[in-house]
């Protein structure tokens, strides 16, 4: 009885809030939490496109349907999928993970560094400020697959602008996608170009929230520009920075279209990152559902561990987040 009353009271107090979030919660439950649970369950099976049916039904001559058990139906395989992936029997998990780490670290570092630099430059009063801002944010408005295509076009070995320019200056053209590192370089460059605007805009917003009298009093106290940057700007940006670095890391880690379309894994799959490698391993040929899910769970686990670790570091530095 008391629980009923407590529930009632809770309902009376919170029903507006719940009413406002319930559609989103429902959609997420149906389309994310259920698929997640389903996906985790799949990792312990060997389900593929070919063996997913428990029964094979055939139409008989009389018009009825005859169903018999599928002799090659899927079954539980325990941790086989994980073992196969982690020992490298299927795919190149460790190489892909290494590439992913390089890809993510380089991407986020340059996104943040360049974004911060440009935000600081553009934050001050000057002529053409609005114009610069629009131009610098423009890459954000271009859909990722179009950017991927544009950069692939620029670095095309035969007709790309970059090689034409190299030619014109008397250098040899470079077969960009024939070497692992130059191929990865092009992909990282594309991704940097794509991601700087978001960082710049977010950090610009952060800069505007730092009270300007802090700078004035620091100037009166004789602080150098570098000291002001170091002791006012950076600490003032911490709340924004911690959020956008975490989001940026997650987004870059799972960034599918750039590698998939720009390098296509060339040469010989050496530039695959985890998400693209997993996609090719699981979906080319017969679609292997259980393998795809296993990769998904591994990727999710890496990101979860990272974000728990990240939050712990932040908290140790006194961040309440």
């Amino acid at each position, binding site marked *: 009885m008391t629980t009923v009353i407590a529930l009632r009271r*809770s309902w009376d107090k*919170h029903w*507006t*809030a*719940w009413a*406002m979030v319930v*559609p*989103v919660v429902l*959609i997420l439950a149906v*389309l*994310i939490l259920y698929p*997640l649970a*389903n996906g985790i369950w*799949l990792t312990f099976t060997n389900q593929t496109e070919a063996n997913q049916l428990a029964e094979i039904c055939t139409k008989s001559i009389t018009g009825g349907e005859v169903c018999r058990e599928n002799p090659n139906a899927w079954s539980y395989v325990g941790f086989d999928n994980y073992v196969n992936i982690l020992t490298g029997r299927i795919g190149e998990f460790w190489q892909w993970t290494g590439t992913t780490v390089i890809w993510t670290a380089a991407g986020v570092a340059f996104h943040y560094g360049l974004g911060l630099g440009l935000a600081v430059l553009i934050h001050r009063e*000057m002529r053409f400020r609005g114009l*610069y*801002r629009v*131009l*610098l944010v*423009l*890459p*954000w*408005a271009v*859909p*990722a*697959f*179009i*950017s991927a*295509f*544009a950069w692939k*076009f*620029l670095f095309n070995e035969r*007709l790309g602008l970059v*090689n*034409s*320019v190299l030619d*014109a200056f008397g250098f040899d053209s470079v077969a960009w996608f024939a070497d692992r590192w130059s191929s990865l370089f092009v992909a990282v460059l594309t991704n940097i*170009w794509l991601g700087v*605007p978001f960082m710049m*805009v*977010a950090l610009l*917003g952060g800069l505007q*929230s730092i009270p300007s009298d802090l700078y004035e009093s620091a100037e009166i106290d004789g602080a150098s520009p570098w000291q002001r940057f170091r002791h006012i700007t950076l600490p003032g940006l911490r709340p924004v920075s911690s*959020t*956008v670095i975490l*989001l940026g890391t997650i*987004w870059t880690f*799972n960034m*599918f*279209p750039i590698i998939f379309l720009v390098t296509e894994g060339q040469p010989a799959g050496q530039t695959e990152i985890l998400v693209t490698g997993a*996609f090719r391993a*699981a*979906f080319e040929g017969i679609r292997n559902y259980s393998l*795809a*899910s296993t990769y*998904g769970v591994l*990727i*999710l686990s890496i*990101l*979860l561990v990272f974000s728990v670790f990240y939050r712990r570091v932040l908290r140790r530095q006194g961040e309440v987040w």
Partner: protein
Amino acid sequence: MAGRTKGKSIALHTTLILASLIAVGPILWVVLSSFKPGYAVQSTEITLIKDPTLANYRYVLFETRFPEWFLNSVIVASLTMLIGIFFSATTGYALSRFNFPGRRSLMMVFLVTQMFPVSILIVPIYSIMSTLGLINTLPSLVIAYLTIAVPFCAWMLKGYFDSIPTSLDEAASLDGCGPFRTFWRVILPLARPAIAVTGFYSFLTAWGEVAYASAFTQTDDKFTLAYGLQQFVPQFNAQWEYLTAAAVLVTIPAGIVFLFAQKHLVSGLTAGGTKG
């Protein structure tokens, strides 16, 4: 920050002009190439403008199903934008104003959804969609894109609502507004910058997505632009001249939405980004 020396000023503008060129350059090059005839696109000679022609555009617009795909994309992206704004605004408001049981876990779930790679979700979502009979329909795409866009947008809007003083809500409630009316009449209009960013983000998410589109649409009258364009990229001998024209046509609507939103981008993202 007045009294900058001349040298510093030149350095500042040079840097920014250079950065702007890098930002705009690749787009500009594609635009220029789209007006060249095929042989000029395929040649190694560097020319900005060469025998300008609209032939590439004519081909893309009239010889392919481009207009149909374009319409599909407009429908999907607009619906995602409108529904996305509505859901993320109500959710963001509830997260910002009410301390209800489940609030913290919902915030956590929103963050975690950002970590899901498409590869883990695509198969189960596909089977849900086919159970609902939605495969090869546009609503299946709208629903899938909402799951990508809404968590981030609700998070961002929550931050923005946090920056609007609660005294406004209290005043409205004293005037006899219920919580929904307060939200709709008082808070939402004040949050216009953040709404603009939310809309921009949802629109772009839907406009450029390929993986779900390739899984959920099957006949070429249901393709979105992003997926339909893959047809121009055969394994060998890509038709670059058509691709450039198509790329320009695809980017224009996103650019228009961007122009509407860009004024608000900084202020809209400010509060949203700062207060996770």
